[in-house]
């Protein structure tokens, strides 16, 4: 007798703790269905024979208590609460004849099905993880064969690589069409145009570098580009028979002169 009494209080303490945990630990629940599944366990019956009405009451009071405790409930918890309140009314009030929509019993049966299915999946997940696992219970060959007879390289990529690659392109922040940074580039066309205008005045040998445009002498990057372009343009003009080039020694200045109407 005393034992019974003791057990009962102990149990109710445990139950109270469980109920509190239910409220305080909303984050621990994975959505309203999870809460309903936990609540349904207190009914200790086959999920198919569960009292959905009772479950609805429990859930609604769970939501009420959470509100009192000022726990922020996610919207889907409240949507579920509204739906269960509706379900409760359907279950309590007989359906008007000719009224459309599913009956309370149908809705309740579907909820019971959902809970049973979720529980079944949880059980299956546990069974799955209890299967013998590769690398834990059974093992693959630990060492590949070290014969290096034919070495072919294959390239591999996973679907994930592919999708990530595409995602990367499509979300690139700094996307811009590819253009060369032309600020410090003097093109051969520009050099050629410039030279054609100038060579008429060059009767005597002149250092090629004096043909570099203004402002392209000091900055090394710009000077390099202008020199290359001017030299290329000079070669082109030599090819056309309009110019002569000479260099007295390795690394000596390159000189040029016009050979058109030169006497």
């Amino acid at each position, binding site marked *: 007798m005393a034992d019974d009494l003791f057990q009962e209080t102990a149990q109710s303490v445990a139950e109270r703790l469980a109920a509190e945990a239910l409220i305080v630990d909303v984050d621990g629940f*994975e*959505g*309203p*269905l*999870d809460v*309903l599944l936990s609540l349904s366990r207190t009914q200790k019956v086959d999920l198919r024979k569960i009292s959905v009405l009772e479950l609805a009451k429990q859930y609604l009071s769970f939501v009420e208590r959470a509100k009192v405790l000022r726990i922020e409930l996610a919207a*889907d918890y409240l949507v579920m609460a509204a739906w269960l309140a509706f379900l409760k009314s359907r279950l309590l009030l007989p359906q008007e004849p000719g009224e459309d*929509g*599913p*009956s309370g019993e*149908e*809705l309740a*049966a*579907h909820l019971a*099905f*959902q809970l*049973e*299915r*979720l529980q*079944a*999946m*949880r*059980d*299956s*997940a546990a*069974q*799955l*993880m209890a*299967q*013998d*696992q*590769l*690398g*834990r*219970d*059974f*093992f*693959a*060959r*630990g060492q*590949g*064969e070290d014969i290096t007879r034919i070495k072919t390289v294959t390239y591999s990529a*996973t*679907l*994930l690589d592919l999708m990530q690659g595409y995602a990367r392109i499509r979300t690139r922040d700094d996307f811009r069409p590819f253009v060369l940074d032309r600020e410090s580039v003097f093109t051969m066309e520009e050099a050629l145009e410039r030279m054609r205008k100038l060579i008429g005045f060059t009767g005597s040998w002149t250092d090629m570098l004096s043909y570099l445009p203004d402002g392209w002498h000091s900055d090394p990057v710009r000077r390099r580009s202008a020199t290359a372009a001017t030299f290329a343009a000079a070669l082109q003009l030599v090819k056309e028979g309009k110019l002569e080039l000479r260099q007295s020694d390795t690394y000596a200045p390159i000189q040029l002169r016009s050979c058109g109407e030169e006497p």
Partner: protein
Amino acid sequence: MEDHSAVPDGEGESLFDAPLMAEQERMVEAVLFASAAPVTLRDLTARMPHGCNPAEALAHLRRKYEGRGVQVVKIGDTWAMRTAPDLGFLMQKETVESRKLSRAAIETLAIIAYHQPVTRAEIEEIRGVSVSRGTVDQLLEMEWIRLGRRKMTPGRPVTFVVTPQFLDHFGLESARDLPGLKELRAAGLLENRPPPGALALGDLDESDEEQPELFED
């Protein structure tokens, strides 16, 4: 095989070009043994000399390894050698610390395995909660799930199915061998049952349509 038709086929492959069955068995044994990853029958055929019958050699070999410390196992359409599960205790040294899967990931994996091909929306309906970005990502990365064909419903959503690597990891010959699959199906818990009152657009035939491919026996 056709071009060697001088000798009637059947057990008696031409003695001249096809090696003896015992020799074929050795070959299959060597190839399976050397490869950590499962090997397809096609791959075996390609590697072995012309006229070999790797399927038959495999059957012999599998019997030969029955009850041994190493076994010949079938994984989907592939074959591999694996240590016997009861000897796992000897292998602590080899055990790779596997990445701890979250409860959400495990449940999602189970739902994909048992309901495949299954869409994200279906997974969410079963779990009653939205599937987080990382979960599917993680399972894809582990190569335990992959994309299946799109569903022929409005929006043509992508589906997920489990991979041969999944089967290999859990020692399953096929997805049909998932524990408790028959019971779940018998109990109607693998059905895609639309909520009452939902407009039954294409729902009617939907659930019968995609299960068969993977689970038909």
